[in-house]
């Protein structure tokens, strides 16, 4: 296509018009070729990168449960054993761990067991009971609800119930079991969560394993105005969300 292939005027075509036409047409061809080759190169280069990515795509964080610093390997090891042994793992039918289970599965001394829970001081709380009783008073219910609703990214909620040192072993074992169930019952009533059983781990230790020392009187509890001693602090259920991934 030559824009200047004009019919000559009666007086003849002005000199140079034809050349201008050829240059113009060449300009079109050069520009068109340049952009066409450019387009072809850009697309084929992208196609090549698509088929053979030179670098891996930047890694994006993946949504997961929370994990905080107290989740040491030792803590997780015990936690995992307890989870599997106390009915929280998938398709388990049994619920909860009695003292013998904890001793066996945790494979850990009383002191070390309690030490693991020490970092949960601010996350958890101690629900206190009357002697020989398993009923939650209003303060206990309120504290339990507060702690339950402060879930954030945690996956598991632990209830570690104990009984005081008075009385025989089997009675205390049963009492601590009832206390754990009492907490569980209240949680079920407030949570409206069909999967609650997969979230709450129940442990009852009676007066046999990992009893609390008087130091734990300083932890957040449901009865802040009452006298606290080693006897009172073990009439309790320690509750806490645990921010660990397993």
């Amino acid at each position, binding site marked *: *296509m030559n824009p200047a292939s004009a019919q000559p*005027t009666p007086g003849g075509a002005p000199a140079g018009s034809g050349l201008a036409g050829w240059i113009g047409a060449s300009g079109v061809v050069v520009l068109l070729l340049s952009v066409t080759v450019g387009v072809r190169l850009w697309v084929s280069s992208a196609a090549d990168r698509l088929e053979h990515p030179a670098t891996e795509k930047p890694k*994006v964080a993946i*949504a997961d449960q929370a994990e905080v610093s107290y989740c040491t390997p030792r803590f997780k090891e015990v936690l995992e054993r307890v989870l599997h042994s106390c009915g929280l793992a998938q398709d388990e039918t049994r619920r909860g761990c009695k003292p013998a289970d904890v001793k066996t599965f945790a494979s850990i001394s009383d002191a070390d067991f309690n030490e693991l829970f020490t970092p949960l001081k601010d996350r958890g709380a101690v629900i206190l009971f009357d002697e020989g009783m398993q009923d939650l008073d209003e303060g206990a219910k309120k504290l339990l609800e507060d702690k339950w609703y402060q879930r954030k990214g945690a996956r598991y909620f632990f209830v570690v119930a104990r009984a005081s040192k008075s009385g025989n072993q089997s009675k205390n074992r049963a009492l601590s079991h009832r206390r754990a169930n009492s907490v569980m019952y209240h949680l079920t009533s407030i949570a409206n969560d069909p999967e609650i059983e997969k979230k709450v781990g129940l442990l009852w230790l009676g007066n046999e394993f990992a009893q609390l020392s008087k130091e734990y009187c300083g932890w957040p509890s449901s009865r802040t105005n009452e006298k606290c001693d080693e006897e009172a602090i073990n009439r309790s259920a320690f509750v806490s969300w645990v921010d660990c991934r397993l």
Partner: protein
Amino acid sequence: MLGPNSRLPATLALIGSILGLLFASYSTMDYAEHLDRGLHDVHCSFIPGAPPTSEAEACRAAMYSPYSALFREAMWGGVPISLFALGAFAFLGGFALYLLLANDRASGKAVVFFAAVSVTPLLVSLLMLTLSLTKLGHLCKTCVGIYISSFLLASGGFMGLFTLRGDVGRPRHGLLFPIAWLFALGVITLIPAGVYAASVPDHRPYLTKCGELKQPKMTAGSPLKIHGTRAVRQVLFFEDPLCPTCRAFHDRLLGEGVFERLDVDLVLFPLDNECNWMLDSALHPGACIVSKAVLCGGDRVRQVLEWSYEEQVYLTRAGKAGANVLRAAIKQRWGDELLRCVDDRKTDVLLNQHLHYASDNGIPVSTPQMYLGTRRVCDEDTDLGLRFALSQLAPEVLK
């Protein structure tokens, strides 16, 4: 007054054509680069040759908009309209060069033809400018570069008509010449687009490779429901009401006419560490509170969500100023009752359930995310490749 041998009109037209060619090249280059499904910086400057930048939201928004390309359903990303500009500017540049060199020896028909066709890029530019202002709400600098180039070109073409005054013995062309030139312009305009369309890689194998939900149903709590007026397909969105990309995605779905065809399950995923433990710091401060406002929307969920998108800039500023400023903004727009709901502990629990649904499914910590059934639609298929992906994965929503 322009004399018959003035070279100004052709020079102006040539400059306009070359500039238009440059801007259209950058625009096409940016578009083509994204065919690798990656995220790239884009050119967004009035200065041709300025390097690409990540701070180019207006240009990116224009690129992702439904107006930037044709045939988006048939081919991933479609055929960018800048390709037609490339062809047209190449032809008009060459023709302007001819007029410049031929000067008063160019035929009157050539000058008139050029004046007529040189206005076409300007007409398209005016149409795109109107769409940018009315539909997108902002102007992309590269696009503005093309608009200015088109104006220069059209001005040159129009001014050329003034050089026809007085008979200077110009040669005469037959009527076939303008017809042939018009045909050439049409063909040349289509060639770059044809080459592009013929070389675009097949994206179909990549559409289904971005993961699946492990747990499709929420066990605790439930997603929010937004029913499109002509819903035909269930879809799940993870969104953050203060995320600009979510807003752009929402606008795109509305602009494409897709949103009304969707039955949306909305899971809120605010990127704000006040409630979202998956972040060390808040990407969108205040997003937790605004998410709770959406949760409290009841039968006005869609209105609250769209309000948060429309007022996103203001709400983001309020979020940075503090929770009380944000709460006041919510109260002012939606009243006391909704604010009481926002402050209710039960709403914290609902939001927490949404976040746990995200973590139970191990989804990427990013928004927006779209799932058709259990299949995740890749990020790149929610912007440039949206219509193509939908035509492959959910064609009913495009009908």
